[in-house]
């Protein structure tokens, strides 16, 4: 197999990898905020359930969670799973896992906000939602951006876990080519791909952090 055929095959997997990456972020960032609200809720039952959920998500391997999401419907409910479900299972598994991590990052950020910001907003008559979305959240985002960057970089590498439910993301294809052709080249290509992907992520996040540096 020549290099261009190999790259062509790998490119197909790269698209899937990038897809998993963006779908996960788009779903888990807002979902994480919702979970964070549950975690910080005054309702003890809700808080308990959400805390347990976060604990399980963070305390068990993502690989195992992907398998549960993929095989669960069949083994638990006897629903026959179609071939196309595997990518959906990956999206769901990644989204609910990363949302748990993001929820804790949001919570840390929200709890680090000085009470004076809430008090000033209250005195000025802002509603609860105005206070959160206009005053608190923008400042929280600035504070948590470095932690978010860490998670996003981890996510790029975690996408390779999708192989456990046979989603043909880039690393799955690299392994197949490597064993069929007995060559290290696909791994080298994979390494370069992940590295460049993360380099782009790091540069982009750095740009966003700089954009938020207009205040202290």
């Amino acid at each position, binding site marked *: 197999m020549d290099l261009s055929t190999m790259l062509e095959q790998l490119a197909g997997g790269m698209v899937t990898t990038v897809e998993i990456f963006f779908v996960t972020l788009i779903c888990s960032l807002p979902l994480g905020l919702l979970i964070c609200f549950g975690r910080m809720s005054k309702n003890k039952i809700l808080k308990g359930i959400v805390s347990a959920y976060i604990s399980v998500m963070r305390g068990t391997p993502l690989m195992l969670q992907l398998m549960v999401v993929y095989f669960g419907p069949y083994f638990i409910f006897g629903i026959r799973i179609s071939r196309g479900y595997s990518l959906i299972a990956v999206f769901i598994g990644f989204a609910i896992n990363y949302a748990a991590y993001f929820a804790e990052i949001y919570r840390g950020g929200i709890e680090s906000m*000085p009470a*004076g*910001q809430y*008090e*000033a907003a*209250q*005195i*000025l*008559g*802002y509603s609860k939602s*105005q206070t959160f979305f*206009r*005053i608190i959240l*923008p*400042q929280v985002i*600035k504070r948590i951006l470095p932690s978010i960057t860490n998670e996003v970089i981890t996510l790029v590498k975690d996408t390779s876990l999708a192989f456990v439910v046979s989603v043909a993301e880039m690393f799955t294809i690299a392994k197949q080519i490597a064993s069929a052709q007995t060559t290290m080249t696909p791994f080298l290509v994979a390494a370069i791909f992940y590295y460049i992907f993360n380099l782009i992520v790091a540069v982009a996040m750095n740009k966003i952090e700089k954009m938020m540096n*207009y*205040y*202290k």
Partner: protein
Amino acid sequence: MILFEMKHIKKSFGALDVLRDISLEVDKGEVLSIIGPSGSGKSTLLRCATGLETPDAGEIVKNGEVGLVFQNFNLFPHFSVLKNIIDAPMRVQKRKKEEVLVQARELLKKMGLEGKEDAYPYQLSGGQQQRVSIARALCMNPDILFFDEPTSALDPELTGEILKVIKALAAEHITMVIVTHEMTFARDISDRIIFMDDGVIAVEGTPEQVFASEHARMKEFLGKFHQG
């Protein structure tokens, strides 16, 4: 006309009785200063008055909108100076931007902050930040403005500029209740002074009456102050 009234207000934090039966009235146009040693309940009184704390007992009657200037400003760091001032009038009071802008710029001028519209709080000195926070409070057109130790976070030089601003407001007969440690300032500016001690109003009256009081704790407090 009585703008603001507290009737038999009580507040404790756990076993600590911070306010023990406080009653007071504030008349329109009046400047009332609240003085007293640390831990006497001055700040808690102000926090109850402005709704930041809920009293355990008693009644608060407000005949108008209440504003508050904080000790440590509590400006919104992600908003420019101008936005800090105009955001609440626009978002909360739903006033027209053009009208709010006119008022905000007048206030900035009055506070000596011309040209600082687009600055962010971190770029300003403490005194400037406190003047922005006063402008922010005033732009809501409060009927009564509370100050919680407005100069305690500032060095003496910056303290002077804030006291000057408050004096100018007093000259405009804006109703104000000021918790302060600045005795000379309280004496000069106030129509009435309340001396708080251990959760009660120990002495109350005109500055002359209060400063001439024979009340033991008051004399002790003023003595410390005179010794510097």
